[in-house]
């Protein structure tokens, strides 16, 4: 810990305020109940499933809510299909900015 980090430790209140403002904007917009990200996730998986068999264990979904933009990251491991030259699996990554009516 250096001197700078000692200084930084001080003002945790602004961090608290910013976190609350972002969270409450989301919750007031009915976040959680009518979750656009949840719908997108299901539909994206559905589309991929039409073409390849997906192992549910090999799907990673991450979301990050921001003040203006939220992101949904869906990482699906697609099993190797013949024509792939080298070993390992291919990964498809879909990053989506999700719009919310409240912002």
């Amino acid at each position, binding site marked *: 810990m250096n001197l700078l980090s000692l200084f930084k430790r001080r*003002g945790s*209140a602004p961090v*608290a*305020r910013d976190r*609350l403002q972002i969270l*409450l904007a989301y919750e007031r917009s009915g976040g959680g109940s009518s979750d656009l990200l949840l719908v997108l996730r299901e539909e994206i998986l559905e589309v991929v499933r039409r073409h390849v068999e997906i192992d549910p264990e090999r799907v990673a979904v991450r979301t990050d809510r921001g003040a203006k933009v939220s992101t949904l990251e869906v990482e699906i491991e697609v099993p190797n299909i013949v024509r792939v030259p080298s070993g390992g699996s291919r990964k498809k990554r879909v990053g989506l900015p999700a719009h919310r009516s409240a912002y």
Partner: protein
Amino acid sequence: MGKVVVVTSGKGGVGKTTSTAALGAALAQFGQNVVIVDFDVGLRNLDLVMGAERRVVYDFINVIQGVAKLPQALIRDKRLDKLALLPASQTRDKDALTEEGVLSVVTSLRKMFDWVICDSPAGIERGPTLAMRFADAAIIVTNPEVSSVRDSDRIIGILDAKTVRAERGERVEKHLLLTRYDQARAARGEMLSINDVLEILSTPLLGIVPESEEVLRASNLGSPVTFNSPGSAPARAYFDAARRLLGEDVEMTIPTEKPGLLGKLFGRRAA
């Protein structure tokens, strides 16, 4: 007709019961006829904070179920004859609290008292929703801390949706009571400031109760802080809040402890 006020917060442990006791006593000290009602079925505590735990014979549920008449269940305060308490039941059956039952008791209390102050349980389920159901006004008790502010925001949303007034398209008066506030820490940026909380919750402020040893002392003794140590900082904050409830225009301050003799001698604040 008396006014029904719910003291609520969503989060537990922020000072609902303490504030109910202190505000109820303060209003009675100003000559108002007050009843404080414990809605926390199964976990009643208002009786203990008021020092009336050994005087409970009948409770809220007994009245709803017709086992006792309302006047039999009301406990008159021994120190303040204008103050009465309706204790909650210690039974585990929370379903015993019915909407019709609560309505009938609250309607009767409204006729008997100037103020009916309902101490809500924590949470957002049946108990808390029934406690706020028939309220004309709500006091939202909030600590300057993230989880408390978030839950207060949630409760404000529920007040605007699930009260009888809201359903009729009328307004439930909302007041924010900030408790356990530490001005020094807020000034150092270590605690959410009053403005932070007001900006986030956009609800008018009823009062600022500073963090104080007097609050625990009062509950240890079973006496509301406004009665037990009326000159202390939290008591003065509650008196000011009570005046604002009565419609007086009182300047908003954060009361501080007056230095005692030793404090004066050494030029320090006696905390």
